[in-house]
């Protein structure tokens, strides 16, 4: 087993963890805004870690670049969409969660 493989394993497992966290957040957090928060963790970090882990395994730089591109695109979309949803929720007066 090579170093790259070990790295990949760690990164992938980390990504998986963040995805799990995101999911748990989605399920457990009480309102839209907080769930949004959980979601972005999964998007950004979870996918990021997985992409990185896989990029290490990639045969070529181009392939790795494509992987990174995918991540970037997801980041972009996630950010935009999160903003839009939060903004829309505010505009529609979706209530904040209060303890």
């Amino acid at each position: 087993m090579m170093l790259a493989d070990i790295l990949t394993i760690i990164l992938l497992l980390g990504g998986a963890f963040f995805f799990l966290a995101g999911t748990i957040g989605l399920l457990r957090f009480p309102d839209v805004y907080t769930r949004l928060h959980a979601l972005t963790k999964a998007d950004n970090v979870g996918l990021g870690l997985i992409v990185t882990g896989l990029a290490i395994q990639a045969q070529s730089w181009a392939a790795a670049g494509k992987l990174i591109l995918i991540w970037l695109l997801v980041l972009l979309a996630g950010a935009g969409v999160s903003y839009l949803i939060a903004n829309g929720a505010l505009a529609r007066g979706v209530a904040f969660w209060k303890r």
Partner: protein
Amino acid sequence: MEAVGLWQSAFDLMLGFSLFGLAWRMLFCADLFKSIVLFITFGLLMAIAWVRLEAPDVALAEATIGAGLTGALLMSAFAKLRTLDNSLKSGQPLLPRPRLHVINFWIALLFTVLLTGGLAYAVLSLPSHSPGLSDAVMSQLDSSGVTHPVTAVLLNFRGYDTLLEMAVLLLSIQSVWSMAGMSDAGEVHTSPVLNVLIQLLSPVLILVSAYLLWVGAHAPGGAFQAGSILGAAGVLLVLSGRPLFNLKKSWLIRLMLVAGPAAFIALATLTLINEGQLLKYPVANAANYILLLETLATVSIGTTLLALFVGSQTEAVQQDQSHQ
């Protein structure tokens, strides 16, 4: 590798059952919006399933059309439906109870179960190995002008089907236009973040579209996928409020819509005259012909999907905005 097979099987089983469960929840829930979201999810899982079935082309098509564009279409349609239907005005749309009698439901269910059983039996009776046409495809691939078999089938071996397919697309836009009163106005209100998003995404989409078109000759991708991405780009533009040109009146748009099928027909006629057979490309020029066809088809497909999206629900947008 035995373990891999086991896990893969587990994955496949999981995927399959979730597909079925999703479909069940989607079709038998009282909240239409939930159904739509579930449908989008269903599309995602379908794409994964296609991948598992070693059908990346289909996965691409599903990802763009099945999940992406159809989802957007459904969203928009549902939005408009809500403006039209008072019973759906509240966020939690209440459906009228099905008039269907309970007993009828059970009868229908019984029949469905029986049908499922019968079909399943038939499917299981199929031989576990069958070459299908793969040998034929592979043996003729060389003279098709492309190296990717799916593209070869779509644009060469069964190009006539694709020709008719283009006609279906043309028909769909003709149909939507003739059914819905067309509104030519695009959106005017925009949002800054969305603008940035669109500005970033659009060029990438177009690039990816071109990439998929190009790569289609030897790898998964091709006119349909590329065209759908192009259409998606257009949809994004529309959604972001870019004032698009007059869709219905513009001859340019019409030309773009027709370009694909027209190219097909022109080529068909040409080959008919030259080669004596419909869409029979000379081997030497096959690649060029296919690329030409694909390019024009991509333009047409993209435009068509965009026009379908716009055509079916522009009016709702206006009402929605006035609501805002």
